[in-house]
């Protein structure tokens, strides 16, 4: 069921990215989209009543049932890249605010 929820989160973010004019709201929508996609990839490796893929003194053997570790590690990569893109987007937002004094893209439409 988690897959379907994360898909709707992805489309919610896409809707926000298309319709909003405020730069910070667009960045937030971008992050919501990204979280939806990450949840979707992680949920592909999820299985009911399986353990987190970490050996410990409580769950010591590889013969136990663990969830799929590969989607999780791919999502780890994708989260870090998301941090990078968000940082660049915020730098753009700061630049726009310093140059035009507003973050609303409709207000600076003619001046770009």
């Amino acid at each position, binding site marked *: 069921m988690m*897959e*379907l929820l994360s*898909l*709707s989160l992805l*489309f919610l973010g*896409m*809707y926000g990215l*298309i*319709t909003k004019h405020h730069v910070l709201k667009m960045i937030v929508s971008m992050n919501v989209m990204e979280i939806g996609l990450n949840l979707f990839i992680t949920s*592909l*490796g999820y*299985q009911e009543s*399986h353990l*987190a*893929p*970490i*050996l*410990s*003194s409580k*769950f*010591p*053997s*590889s*013969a136990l*049932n*663990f969830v*799929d*570790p*590969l989607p*999780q*590690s791919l999502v*780890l*990569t994708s*989260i*870090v*890249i998301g*941090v*990078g*893109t968000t*940082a*660049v987007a*915020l*730098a*753009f937002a*700061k*630049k726009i605010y*310093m140059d035009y004094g507003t973050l609303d893209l409709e207000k600076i439409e003619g001046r770009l």
Partner: protein
Amino acid sequence: MKRILILGLMAILVMGIYNYAVYDPYQKTTMPFEERDSQAYLSRSVNGDPGEVVYGKSTNLENGAANTVAAIVVDYRSFDTLGEVTVLFISSLGVAFLSGGFGKTIRLKHKPSFLLQYGARFVFGIILVFGAYMFLHGHLTPGGGFPGGAIIAASALVLYLGGESSGEKMKAFKILEGAAGSLYVLSGIVGLYFAGFFMQNVLPSGIVGHLFSAGIMPVIYILIGLKVGSELTGILDYFMREEVSS
């Protein structure tokens, strides 16, 4: 216009859900979970079956980390992580380019209160040590270099909020970042020289679950933690500076 957009997106969403529920494109229900290829990562049997892996006992595995996700990120697919670190470096370059590099530091509008000023300095050390713990134990527990580095950057943010200015200290962070990144590439070349493959694990894997285990993984995680920490601190510092108008 917006209504049409909502309807279109909803239609795509319903189509996607229908597709997912009926056709099962990722074979989640038809393919047994135990037959997936990635189960080889869990039993450390990519290059041959070592039998059951037991925490605290198994030795001489192809990868001796207790945390399987970390094993994939830093050992099996270490080349991906090198690319990931490069992406983060390029984004830091982009932020530096957009915010005008080394301008003068913007003063925060509020003056930090007594409690914030001294509480920040008190909490700073604890957060820093927690970040270091996180990347030192990345091969044993959840966490690793990237969250550890982010926590270190958070400790720097706490200092900024407490009214501390960065000043000349950022140069040391730049040098640390460059050195850690170069050493990461160098550790890959060491693997190429001694074992014949780029990023190959050349150190002995040790006993699963011990602090000194998993060969080169803790070293790489320390390098990644230092690099990400100094990089994110640098990004924070760029946001605190403004362009010098000439």
